[in-house]
Each structure stands twice: as structure tokens, then as C-alpha cells.
């Protein structure tokens, strides 16, 4: 991936969003990329109690050491619209909680600060997650209203320099980003990295977290991910969303769960599963320069059930340049 390619990929965004300037100059402290990243693409055709077994088999491959650690599961909860595939499914969240407890985690907490709906409890009730959390006795923290601390950002693309962030996030030992795989009308895709906008507290930054939009969504994602480490990704790619995501798109079935120990590799893989080109998503391309791996040569597939969508995911017009020719994105998954 070259900077020229990043620039090319950014063109559509630049024309539509004046603050999303291309990533001309590196603005990170140091290269933290692992030599290799691991990804598992699991097959799962429905949301059911069986997800625990599927997820357990996948997680065992990573030999994660979370013994005694506080694990924070960060699902993607944005808003509730009946029949719209907006949010990470409650059964996948419950399965993840169960698995991390089995792995010996000291504490598992689900935490999220919805970016659109101010009434977090409404989202929990309407999606059925409140009942799931209650039945499984999983604590939930509303990150929009948590105690906060001012944190210096470890990259400087957004020029924000600092963000106030929730103590629950800052004090967690092991953060698991659990995105719902969707296209996004401002950022192209919303996956494990964009999902972390949910840790930015609404009580300070509002609903939506508009300052991040003004400073550049792509840039803000990079700064946030450089600062708040994602230790693991469990992506809900069973029922996804295409078109005018993250709220008003249409459902698209992939029947997959994507696991990874690297958010960049996870998002690159999910983007390819969507039939889109991750090299053209600015925040994925830039984080691949210092935080994780985008290149298939540096991604080790532990299990793969790749698919080659006959038709790439639909996007809004500004992101049509992300769509690969049929099969091109899937080639990188093989």
C-alpha cells in the first residue's frame, strides 16, 4: 500500500467532506505493527444459543491469556429501528461473555455509548440486550455517562490532541471490539475501529459525537485507535448492512463471524468479505502504516470460510470507489 494509493482512495471523501483531508504526513508516535496478525473467519448461519460453541472453538485457536483480567466487550449499539440490522446481536454478546468467563477472565463487562440514541436503556430494551444481560448477569456500563478522564491522543491526524474518555475503558485490561459489519455513509465502512467512536462520551461530545465529524471522521478514528488499544475483535458478520448505513441501509447476509487479534487485519478482512477494497478506506489504510496489518501476506488465517460475493456491498455514491470488481477482494482472502 502506498501513500499515492491512499490519496487516490480518499478522493471521494475529500470532495464530499471538506474536513477529511488526505493523510499526507504520518502523525503517529511509533510503529506498533505486529509481525503477523491472526484472523479466523467462522461460519454461523443464524443467531442462536449455538453461537457460544462456534465462538469457543474459534477463540481457542488464539490461545488468549485473559486469566484474572478485566475484559470489556464493546458492541456496536447505535439506535433501534425495527427490522434494521444496526446493532451487534445480543446472542453474540452473550456468547462472547460466556467464552471470556470460561477463559478465566476476572470480570467481563459490556460497555457502550450509543452515538445516535441518547436513551441507552431504550436501545438495550428494544434490542433484547437488557434481558440477555440480566439473564446472564453481565454488568453494563453506559459509556456516554461514565466518569471520564482527559487523555492525550497518541496520534495527531484530527488535531484534537486530547479526548475525555471513560474510566471504565481506560481501566480495562482487555478490550474486545464487537462491530456489526456495515457500510457507513460518512466513513465507507463501520467495523472494529469505527466502532470505537462509542467509547467517546456523549455527555461531553453530544449525540452524535459531532466534534469527531468536524475534525474528520477518518482522522478521528485513527487517533482514537492509536490511543485506546483494541486487543481482540469479534465481528458480527452474520446479518450485515449495506447501502445507506449505519442506520438506514438494507440487510445483507454473510453468515460469518470474524475474529482477530489485530483490528486492522480484522477490518481489512471484513471489508474484503463485503467485496470492498480496504486499501481505499483511509482509516484502514493509515492504521496499516503503524498499528496493524492490512496486507494478506502478514495475516495468518487460522480458519477460513471465505466467501466471494457475486456483488460487492452497495455503498452510497461517495464510496462507490471502494467496490471491487467481482472476486477481486475475495482473492486476498484465499
Amino acid at each position, binding site marked *: 500500500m502506498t501513500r499515492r494509493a491512499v490519496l487516490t482512495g480518499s478522493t471521494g471523501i475529500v470532495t464530499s467532506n*471538506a474536513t477529511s483531508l488526505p493523510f499526507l504526513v504520518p502523525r503517529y508516535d511509533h510503529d506498533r505493527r505486529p509481525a503477523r496478525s491472526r484472523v479466523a473467519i467462522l461460519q454461523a448461519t443464524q443467531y442462536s444459543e449455538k453461537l457460544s460453541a462456534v465462538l469457543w472453538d474459534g477463540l481457542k485457536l488464539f490461545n488468549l491469556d485473559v486469566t484474572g483480567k478485566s475484559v470489556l466487550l464493546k458492541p456496536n449499539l447505535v439506535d433501534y429501528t425495527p427490522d434494521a440490522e444496526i446493532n451487534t446481536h445480543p446472542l453474540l454478546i452473550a456468547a462472547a461473555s460466556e467464552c471470556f468467563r470460561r477463559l478465566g477472565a476476572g470480570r467481563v463487562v459490556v460497555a457502550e455509548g450509543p452515538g445516535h440514541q*441518547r436513551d441507552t436503556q431504550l436501545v438495550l430494551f428494544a434490542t433484547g440486550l437488557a434481558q440477555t444481560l440480566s439473564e446472564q448477569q453481565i454488568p453494563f456500563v453506559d459509556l456516554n455517562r461514565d466518569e471520564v478522564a482527559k487523555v492525550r491522543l497518541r496520534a495527531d491526524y484530527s488535531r484534537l490532541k486530547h479526548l475525555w474518555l471513560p474510566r471504565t475503558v481506560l481501566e480495562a485490561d482487555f478490550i474486545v471490539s464487537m462491530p456489526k459489519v456495515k457500510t457507513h455513509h460518512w466513513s465507507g465502512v463501520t467495523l472494529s475501529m469505527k466502532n470505537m467512536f462509542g467509547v467517546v462520551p456523549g*455527555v461531553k461530545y453530544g449525540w452524535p459525537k459531532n466534534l469527531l465529524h468536524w475534525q474528520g471522521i477518518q482522522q478521528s478514528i485513527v487517533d482514537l485507535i492509536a490511543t485506546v488499544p483494541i486487543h481482540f475483535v469479534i465481528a458480527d458478520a452474520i446479518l450485515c448492512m449495506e447501502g445507506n448505513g449505519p442506520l*438506514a441501509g438494507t440487510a445483507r447476509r454473510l453468515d460469518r463471524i470474524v475474529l482477530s487479534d489485530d483490528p486492522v487485519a480484522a477490518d481489512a478482512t471484513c471489508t474484503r468479505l463485503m467485496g470492498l477494497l480496504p486499501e481505499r478506506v483511509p482509516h484502514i489504510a493509515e492504521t496499516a502504516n503503524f498499528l496493524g496489518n492490512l496486507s494478506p501476506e502478514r495475516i495468518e488465517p487460522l480458519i477460513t470460510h471465505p466467501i466471494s460475493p457475486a456483488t460487492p456491498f452497495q455503498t452510497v455514491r461517495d464510496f462507490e470507489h471502494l467496490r471491487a470488481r467481482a472476486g477481486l477482494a475475495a482473492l486476498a482472502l484465499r
Partner: protein
Amino acid sequence: MALEPTCLALMALQLEQHANVQVLLDDQRPDGSWGAFGDDDESSGLTGLALLALNTLGVFPGPAARAARWLLDIKGREANWPWKWKFRTTDTHVRFDPDKFGWPWQPGTCSWVVPTSFALLALKQSFPCCREGKVAYRIQRSVEMLHDRACPKGGWNAGNGVVHGSPMAPHFDATAIALLALRSEPSNKLIDRSLVWLERQAHSCPSPWSLAWSILALDAYDKPIAPLQNHLETLSEPDETYDTATLAVTALALDCTTSGNPFEVVV
């Protein structure tokens, strides 16, 4: 101190001796605004809610005047000409008229429905008559903004009614707070449609925060709220209530017929 729960709790405790307004006064910034929480080094768009709390709790001419001045000086970024031009020409995915603006969640960002509604309510309460100059201008512009950003079938979402050609669905709290802010305006189809939506949906609302705001709005429009209050009581267990802000707005909604509705503007 977090601003929103503090303001709502003080309003809920207005008749109690526990309502210590000094905690709010102590945190007012020299420019008249409040931060989102005690250590916050920037101003919050919920300064309008703080002014509403002051109006509810008594007469505080100095702090209230400073808060009103700050509100009159702050506007959504779309109101500035380079951005107005951008939203008219190159960035047209969100359907809105940048000439119609209100207040942002924080300075330097766009206008959104909730901070605009709180600020509008606060200014209407603070200047009940003889509105001239900047006061009249900002009230008029924000009323127009709320009409401009409404959802196509009534009600309000966070900020815009149509994004990338897709209509947005209304939110309970944004709809209720916008309706409260528009209470003193002449009735029109948008207000009527929004009230109809809120009345219909509130009966099946599963969440105390949203239901409580719905009750406060419907009460202000003289709609029957007793069944909704009964519903709210079944939803709210004080020991299990989510946060102080929810507990406070629930108390306000349950007491509004007896203790008054602090979000009403005299028509």
C-alpha cells in the same frame, strides 16, 4: 458534578430543602456557560438546561444574565458563511437549510435538536415579553431550525430529518423536548403530527427516560397523561434506576400535575 443530572435533579428537588443551587452557581464559567462536568475546560451546549434550572429554582439575575448572553453569542457552525456555502453547494447529503440554526452540543460544531430546544426554552423563559434585537432573532431562527430539521412524518431525531435520501425515525426525548420548546408557537401541522406520534408511541415505550420526557411534553400540551404516569411507575424502580438524570426526569414527570412542569413556557 455532571451538568445534565445536576440540573435535572435540582429541578426535581425544587420544593425540597436539598436543592442546593450553589453547586450549580459555583461551576458557572466566567463567560456564563457551564462545562459538561466539573473538570471540563470547555463550554457545553447544555448551558441552556442550566439556565432553565436557574429559572426554576429562583431569581439569580447575574448568573442568569451571563448564561443568556453566552447563549446569544453561540450558534451552530453551519450559521457561518463558509460552512453555509459548503452545505449549500458541495455537501448536500443531509437535507437542511443552514440559514436556520440553533445551538450545538459544543462550540465549533453544528446545531442539534436537544441543545437547541433547551436553549430556546431557556431564552423564552428568561425573556417572557418584549423580545427585541438578538433575543428575538435567535428565538426566531431556532424555531425555524426545529421546523426545518423535523422528521418527514413528524417528530425529531438527533438533528436531521433526511440523510442521504433516507428519512430518519423520531426519538422520544428529542421530540418531547422540541415540542416543549415550541409550545408557545402557533399550532401547525408539524406540531400536530409530532404530538400524534408521541401520544401513540408513548404507550408502548419501554424506557423511563423516554417515557418521562414524553409525559412532560404531553402535559404541556394538555394531553391526558395519567395512564402514562401509571405506566412510568411500573417501569421505574428507584433502586434500579439507571442514573441520576433518569431518576430526576422520572420524578419530574410523575409530579408535573401537582408540582408544576418546569419546562412549560407561559403562552
